[in-house]
């Protein structure tokens, strides 16, 4: 009897905690909507700012989808922004040969770097933290070497490719594919299970090496695609391309409620909620006249607070 009582007591407290965690991201979104809605007197939802939000959201959303798979396994990738930068640069160089090479070159660059990350982390057993940090330094160097420190431009007609239907198409395609891959596929199920207990997955007869390698490649490929999108949006590639991506994407995934330690409680809806939150926040701050530099500061602070509130530090293996 006593066993039962204690059992159910623990049960309810765990469930309560989980429910709170599930509702927390939504509250955050509601807060951001209300705060910036009133703060900008509704300007944040005007047509003009919705367009600017869409521009922002393309990057954050598909970046966060890629990131979600990495996070679900309890891993992370600090190189995503600089990979996007390199991909943008190689894509820009490729346009000098043929503008239509930009997309494949950008994507291939991203996936190759993702593959290298994956190989070093999974096969050589170097911590993701170290590997991707080192990779981001290398990518920054690589950008400077390729471009010789200069800003590289793409042919102007390519800017016409960047249309609203394209943006919406990309968001929709990745949204649907991401949802099914994350929530309804073997790959998604196993990825989340790896975050919960890698040993249990291994001992269920699953080839974990393959599953651990894939998310880094997917994220690299997505960063490559983002590099291309950035190129056709701005028409240029420079050493600062992609520098804000990392923070935005990680913020979106975590604010949306994907646990830093990953696991089966990770949900795809977190990516949507998080993207909306961060996008509205960025645009709202811009309208309110916050400079980009200060925005970085505030987002960094939000990131820290999210981690502090949501993460069970006892289980963190990376930051020792």
């Amino acid at each position, binding site marked *: 009897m*006593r*066993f039962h009582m*204690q*059992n159910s007591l*623990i*049960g309810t407290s*765990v*469930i309560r905690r*989980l429910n709170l965690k599930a509702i927390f991201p939504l509250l955050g979104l509601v807060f951001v909507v209300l705060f910036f809605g009133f703060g900008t007197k509704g300007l944040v939802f005007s047509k003009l700012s919705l367009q600017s939000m869409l521009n922002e959201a393309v990057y954050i959303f598909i970046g966060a989808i890629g990131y979600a798979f990495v996070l679900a396994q309890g891993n992370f990738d600090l190189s995503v922004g600089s990979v996007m930068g390199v991909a943008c640069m190689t894509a820009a160089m490729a346009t000098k040969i043929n503008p239509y090479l930009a997309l494949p070159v950008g994507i291939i660059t991203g996936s190759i770097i993702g593959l290298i990350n994956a190989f070093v982390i999974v096969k050589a057993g170097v911590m993701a933290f170290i590997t991707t940090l080192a990779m981001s330094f290398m990518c920054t160097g690589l950008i400077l070497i390729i471009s010789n420190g200069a800003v590289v431009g793409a042919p102007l007609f390519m800017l016409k490719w960047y249309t609203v239907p394209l943006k919406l198409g990309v968001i929709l395609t990745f949204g649907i594919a991401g949802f*099914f891959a994350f929530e*309804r*596929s*073997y790959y998604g*199920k*196993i990825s*989340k*299970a790896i975050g*919960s*207990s890698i*040993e*249990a*997955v*291994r*001992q*269920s*007869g*699953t*080839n974990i090496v393959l599953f651990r390698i894939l998310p880094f490649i997917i994220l690299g490929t997505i960063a490559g695609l983002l590099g291309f999108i950035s190129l056709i949006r701005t028409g240029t590639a420079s050493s600062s391309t992609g520098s804000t991506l990392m923070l935005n994407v990680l913020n979106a995934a975590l604010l949306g409620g994907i646990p830093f330690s990953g*696991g*089966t*409680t990770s949900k795809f809806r977190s990516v949507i909620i998080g993207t909306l939150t961060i996008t509205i926040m960025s645009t709202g701050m811009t309208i309110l006249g916050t400079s980009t530099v200060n925005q970085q500061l505030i987002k960094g602070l939000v990131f820290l607070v999210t981690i502090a509130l949501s993460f069970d530090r006892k289980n963190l293996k990376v930051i020792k």
Partner: protein
Amino acid sequence: MPVESLLLKAHKINKSFGITRALKDADLELEYGQIHGLIGENGSGKSTLASIIAVIQPADSGEIFLDGQPYKPVDSLEAQRQGICMILQEKGTFDNLSVSRNIFIGKENFFSFGGMINIPRMNAAAQKILEKIHAGHIKAAWPITALSFEDRKLVEVARAMYAEPKVLIADETTTALSRNGREILYRIMRDMKKEGHSVIFISHDLDELINVCDSLTILRDGEYVKTFEKKEFVTSVIRHLMVGREVAGNYYRTDMDSCKNPETVFSMEHVYSQKLRDITFDLRKGEILGLGGLAECGMHEIGNIAFGLIPPDLGIVKAGDDKVVINPVKATSLGIAYLSKNRDTESLMTSANIVDNICLASYKKIQKNLFIWNKDEREFAKAWGKKLEIKMTNIHQYVIELSGGNKQKVALAKWLGFGADVLIMDYPTRGIDIGVKVNIYQLMTELKNQGKSIILISEELPEIIGMSDRIIILKDGRIKGEFSREEKVTECKLVDYMI
């Protein structure tokens, strides 16, 4: 007996680990100059009680008196200063240090001068202790790794004896010792007794306790049962009280015939590894093969190798005719499943819900055209959860909230759902209450009747004897004996082969 005339008295000690109550108002009275045995089944709370007395972990409630005075040290070091030392059941030596540094671990200051440790002086002091405990064949300057496991245990004894304890607690120390090593420990215990000091001696070997101890306290399910004086020792009575039921227990298999099917479904041929030496056996269709021995005999490693978790150094692991098991992916594709003895860390995702856990090995079966639908997952989990009668509020309950027995049922449901033909069960009833144990035994019988084969690895002999068609006993990584069910071997006989 009044507290004043007792060396140590532990009164109404309680301790819980999460929802498991390890000790319930447990008592222990220790007289001056007494060798006091502590006995009980696995999970009866012996080690917990002992480690609370040595302040290796705190009690939830209860009081302890030493020499009639309240005894409340803050940690085990202070307990040692007050005269209570414990030799732990687990390995307690540090591989990178010398024998003497292992003995004086944490006490190096005794030999330091200006920040430097005077090694020769430390070695000399350590050698003196080793001589005193009749283990002079161990040299203090040697690295610990140069010693056999038995001698390493003696180094731990030396470490405990250095403090000249009033109470020495030896937790399953003799399991790691040969006859010679045991004699050394017995002699130490007799020496202590002469000086009016006492020993709390924990062992699962009843015959040994009866020979060595002056009195015996029985614990069962964390509760104090009874204390016997030497003249009252009767093996059958003690065993009966220990188990709290008829020892011959009728919840095992009732048939007494071994499996006669000649078809081999799994085999190991001349397998060597770090712990194993020339292991060869086969498993037949519809057979339950029991592997028994001491915890460190290598039987758990056989389970790992059989599932491909560790590659053997030499030898072949085969399923069926010629299909070689090289890793868990291959093993499962050949219909082999493995239930780890480390339930919470290796067979389950405790932070995930029941559905995710049960489906984990079977997604390929559940998926339809590359999609896994929630409804199919739920139905799969429900069906197997029901089959195993898992006590849960619903299938979305988190596994961490379940009791040990129900967790094990979830792990079993995963493999039954997967549909394994060969099931390797490593200590499946570890830390599980009797109700679920019975369920698991019934399930094993059912699987056997369906023509599935089981390798049962267990540290509990009654369960191996009760369930197996054939028993293999291991010692130090080698097969020491094989017995068929018809032989009706006794526990005592198997123990002879184990030690």
